[in-house]
């Protein structure tokens, strides 16, 4: 028990994202300013994506909404797709952090940790539901920079899948692992996209059906993994 705890804290410290490390060192005023502007751009863009739609939103409109020059936007993001991707990176990073840094989850079951991960992602996305639906369609186009096959999106996926792998490693005993376990993190990424689609279509009050769906499907998934090692 003690060794596992040690291992997880070590991992937590080595695998911190660069941005987190930077904040830990107390950034200077310049960096702080930059971060504030970046945040302003993202907030303005998201609100426009949500109300006007992703396709109809121009960088010009984003700049106006954020109260800065259009040129300034390009100092931070090349395209509006970049802004959207940045948002999805934040979504994944905060969800990973919320599971990793939550002391209550330290002794939780694998199902619970995975549930907490996905739920925290969905909670993050909730205010922008309309935009997420549009982005989803967008992402399915092969040439789209938002697309699941784009380079940055691949990186993001790796980060996510890597974290799921960590969770599996600390929860499932190493010996007699099911062959399925090696596929599990990748499959989980696809599962997450499915859950996202379910959530988008869920019209039940408080998205109650999504909660039930996550809970039941994770219970099935984890029990399949566990049965495999018998």
């Amino acid at each position: 028990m003690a060794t596992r705890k040690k291992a997880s804290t070590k991992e937590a410290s080595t695998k911190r994202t660069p941005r987190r490390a930077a904040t830990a060192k107390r950034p200077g005023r310049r960096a702080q300013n930059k971060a504030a502007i970046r945040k302003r751009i993202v907030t303005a863009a998201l609100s426009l994506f949500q109300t006007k739609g992703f396709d109809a939103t121009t960088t010009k409109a984003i700049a106006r909404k954020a109260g800065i020059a259009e040129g300034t936007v390009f100092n931070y993001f090349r395209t509006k797709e970049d802004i959207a991707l940045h948002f999805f990176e934040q979504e994944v990073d905060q969800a990973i952090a919320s599971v990793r840094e939550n002391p209550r989850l330290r002794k939780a079951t694998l199902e619970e940790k995975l549930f907490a991960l996905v739920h925290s992602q969905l909670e993050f996305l909730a205010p922008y539901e309309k935009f997420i639906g549009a982005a989803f369609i967008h992402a399915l186009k092969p040439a789209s920079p938002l697309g699941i096959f784009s380079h940055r999106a691949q990186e993001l996926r790796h980060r996510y899948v890597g974290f799921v792998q960590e969770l599996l490693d600390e929860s499932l005993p190493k010996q007699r692992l099911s062959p399925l376990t090696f596929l599990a993190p990748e499959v989980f990424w696809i599962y997450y996209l499915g859950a996202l689609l379910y959530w988008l279509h869920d019209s039940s009050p408080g998205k109650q059906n999504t909660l039930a769906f996550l809970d039941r499907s994770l219970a099935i998934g984890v029990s399949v993994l566990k049965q495999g090692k018998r």
Partner: protein
Amino acid sequence: MSSQKNTTTGRALSMASMGAGIAGSYVSYLLQRAFLGEAEGKIKLKSTHVRAARRMAEQMHALRGPAMKLGQMLSLQTGFLPDEVLAELATLQMEAPGMHPSLVRVQVKGSLGRDPEEIFKQFTAEPFAAASLGQVHHAVTREGQRVAVKIQYPGIRRAIENDFTLFRTFSKPAQASGHLPKSAIDEIEKQIIAETDYQREADNIEFFADRLAPLSFVKIPHVFREYTSDKVLTMSLMSGQHLEDFLAQRPSQRLRSQLGAHLFELFHFQVYEVKALHADPHWGNYLFNDDAGISLVDFGCVKYLSPEAAAYLRCVCLYPGSTSSADFRRLLETYYEQAGEKLLPGARRALIGFAESFYRKVYPPNPGNNHIFDFSDNAFLRDFLRESKNLFRTKGVITEFIFLARAEMGLYQTLHRLRARVPTSEIVRKYL
């Protein structure tokens, strides 16, 4: 897209693709549980006919949901379950999947707006009991009161509705033949759906706290409305033990009989005076105290009786004359007429048979002094089941009585377990 959504196939497709089979069905949860381990050992295929029936009964145990209530009624009509199992079903609980602490937190926050740890001074993340459709947690309010917080499993209402839709489709033949009247399915669905609204349950608790006040031996929890929503119910923690734990302490005959008499009186008081019934008699709903007090804890399933039904029951319970008299027959006919049903000869015979071979024995109309009925002999239970089956098979059952019958069966089952000796007629006479 939208045109596809409006066709039945489109709906079916979208349901399937959305994984409705996993989250959208109560039955599917129970099946899943049965096949994925927990209940594995219990369910084993056996070949002979009797064993097949028993296996079915075991599955019914696993299926403690709406299927249980439906199955119980079907069995009354078709006799596909052994009697003992049928009696036991009355005292089982509607079960929901267990929730891990993260899901509990999400449910509370989604419903009350804050995490349970913020709302309460103390909140135990592990549940201490299963409740109908959810689970119960210990907590302490900011004011220092110890409370029980009942939390509902997400999406359960939709899941139940889906199951009923499916069940209606599959049971079309039974509906057509009249074995399973549509009104009966409606009644069961209505009651079960009502159980998913904890605000309504809170209303029920307050209603009963008021109406049962004359019975000093009954204790009803206090509802904390500020911490209650349709999915979270906070109430004061009640004292007492569940039946099994209580019996494990080997209570004296005197105490068992006292408790039995109290349960018996509680039932009849509700029927005649309150005209509403705590109608889910499973044992988790009662807590027994050493001073023969009874704490009631779950008011999800409450059946409100029509004044006609209460009046009818009042007349027939200790009917002094002959049950084959024209007067008794008129009593039955009048009640059926008021309920908008026709009393068919078969149903009439069954009702008279019921009165004769069950009620006359358990509730003699003119008992000698100190008449005591001993519930420890299970012959009376067999009589009750046999007569119920006769009655349900005649297809002449008024839907109002479906839940009453269930509650009554639960009462007798509990009295039998207590091996109570109860002055039945004397107690009933107080309320006639």
